[in-house]
């Protein structure tokens, strides 16, 4: 039976709550209502209000209380109703959670789940990709799964991790993708990228929903004789620099792709990694395909123009292939 990306996350939560009594969920409308996207549907019935804590509209308190519970040895999984609201609990994340271990050796084993990303006409405040605020903050881990398999395996690893993990769920994938998951238990390690498609001529390095865009582009390019390798980062911090460099060493050309806006986006970190470590293997400029530097617009034609898609990737990739 096929499992959607959303169901995969729910299964991961469920299994971890069954396995470990210290795991609990906390957030807005996650109990009876099951969360804005229904990721936590059914958890209240199964685990009760002690382990599925509905909160006031207080993102700082949600994160702060998670930190407090984490310091006491619990494993809270906090939900931001939309990733866009994570900025309301920002200080707690970047200054409290991120720095505890380094400063006073206190682990903060919390997960902050956030539905991020566009393509659902959510407009400027229900579509953002805020991962870079956290990628640049030492002490946090950042996970962005692209598949149902990885979403389940990574949420389980995130919960077991002893450090704060930002877990970005692409809301456009929630019900769009599904796959058959193993019946036996599995986890996916945090910090390991995956080669989603092997290729010789050019590497597309990406993560999240854009993995699907890259694969679509790769298919089109294959028909034109360009063999594309797609690297799915899966985790942004820790970043699997080895897999990235290995791919570029092989293909000599790198196209960096993300749905997030351009300036200060993940592509910068990837470009620096490549230009610093495997410069001598490069046979062409490192190119970026990203959203432009604007808020995410609401109106469909604008949003479509804003979001990267296979066509835009193919165009850039063709240019780079021929370079």
């Amino acid at each position: 039976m096929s499992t959607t990306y959303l169901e995969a996350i729910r299964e991961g939560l469920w299994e971890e709550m069954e396995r470990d009594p210290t795991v609990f969920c906390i957030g807005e409308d996650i109990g009876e209502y099951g969360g804005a996207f229904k990721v936590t549907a059914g958890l209240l019935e199964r685990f009760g209000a002690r382990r599925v804590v509905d909160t006031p509209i207080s993102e700082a308190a949600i994160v702060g209380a998670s930190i407090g519970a984490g310091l006491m040895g619990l494993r809270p999984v906090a939900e931001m109703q939309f990733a866009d609201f994570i900025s309301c609990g920002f200080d707690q994340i970047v200054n409290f959670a991120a720095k505890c271990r380094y400063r006073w050796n206190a682990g903060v084993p919390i997960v902050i789940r956030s539905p991020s990303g566009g393509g659902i006409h959510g407009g400027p405040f229900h579509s953002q990709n805020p991962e870079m605020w956290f990628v640049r903050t030492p002490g946090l881990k950042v996970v962005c799964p692209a598949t149902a398999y990885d979403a389940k395996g990574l949420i389980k690893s995130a919960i077991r991790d002893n450090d704060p993990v930002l877990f970005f769920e692409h809301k456009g994938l929630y019900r769009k993708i599904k796959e058959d998951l193993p019946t036996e238990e599995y986890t996916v390690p945090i910090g390991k990228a995956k080669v989603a498609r092997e290729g010789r001529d050019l590497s597309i390095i990406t993560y999240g929903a854009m993995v699907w865009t890259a694969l679509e582009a790769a298919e089109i390019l294959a028909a034109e004789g360009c063999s594309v390798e797609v690297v799915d980062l899966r985790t942004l911090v820790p970043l699997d620099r080895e897999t990235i460099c290995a791919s570029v060493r092989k293909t000599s050309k790198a196209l960096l792709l993300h749905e997030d806006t351009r300036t200060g986006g993940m592509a910068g970190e990837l470009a620096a990694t490549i230009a610093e470590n495997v410069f001598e293997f490069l046979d062409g400029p490192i190119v970026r395909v990203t959203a432009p530097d604007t808020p995410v617009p609401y109106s469909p034609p604008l949003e479509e123009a804003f979001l990267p898609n296979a066509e835009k990737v193919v165009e850039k990739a063709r240019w780079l292939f021929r370079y």
Partner: protein
Amino acid sequence: MSAVPATGAEIHNAAPAAGTPDAELAHKCLYYMLLMREVEDRIERKLYRQGKVVGGVYVGRGQEAIPVGSALVSQADDVLFPSHRDMAVFFIRGVSVRRVLAQYMGRVDGVTRGRDGNMHMGDMSVGVVSLISALAATVPVAAGAALAMRYKGINGVAFSYFGDGATSRGDWHEGVNFASVQKLPVVFICNNNQYAYSTPLHLQMACTNVADRGPAYNMPAEIVDGNDVLAVYQATVRAAAYARSGSGPYLLECKTFRMTGHSAHDMAQYVPKELFEEWGKLDPIVRLEKRMIDQSWAAQGEIDALHAAIAREVDDAVAWAEQSPFPDPATLLDGVYESQ
């Protein structure tokens, strides 16, 4: 109701007679409440279901008395910060139904030209600031607008709207506290509709009323029947007079009920049916209509005619909005900064 003189509404039409509510005011209230109800019904029950409105839709059905009764008190120089269930504020300030519908449909003639959807719109030329999604974020911004009015010697008031749930947010506290310390002219208007999305009040706050939070800021806080538009109007007159006089902010808690789900896709199964029934009887439009007839402020025929006129007005506006083009993708990059 004390005899505080009414201060407002010159910019909309003639001010109502000072003192108690009168026929003219009632007519105006009814018009705006009906208009809001009709526009929101179209959006939620037609355009959204037809796929013509593609984003989130949050309506204020059953709560129309709050934006209407309060915004009608506002004066030309005042600045209003509506929340997501206060559509009538826009109409009262002079934003056309056409542009609001175009906004929901993501058209270029929408208030934000397609950049944003639903109630995420503002227009400084009529003194309305756009909310952002983050609840209560407008609260300190309203305080700043009030500060600016005092700074510039404008005797204006900021109207800051929010729901019960929004009062849990840090920004709410910081904004209200700052306004109180600075004795800024702000009227804080809470629509306490007893739910925040699916969350009932007792999971949102430990106090009984939002008004119980007034003393923390040494701020007068008044509880109003939020389904009685004339009561809201009178209370806002008091609140605005207090704020305008330089005494500091004033909190109005308007008790009401959200007669819908949180948004168009929410069936609100978590709300006990009885509550809908109970509050359905207190519908602010029905109540006002009854009062108008009882007081002989209007005949039933007049009211029926108003309903029909509004339906036609909205028909026309929908047609107009549907003919507005989508924004040109070539404009995507424009206007992030003043000059680019």
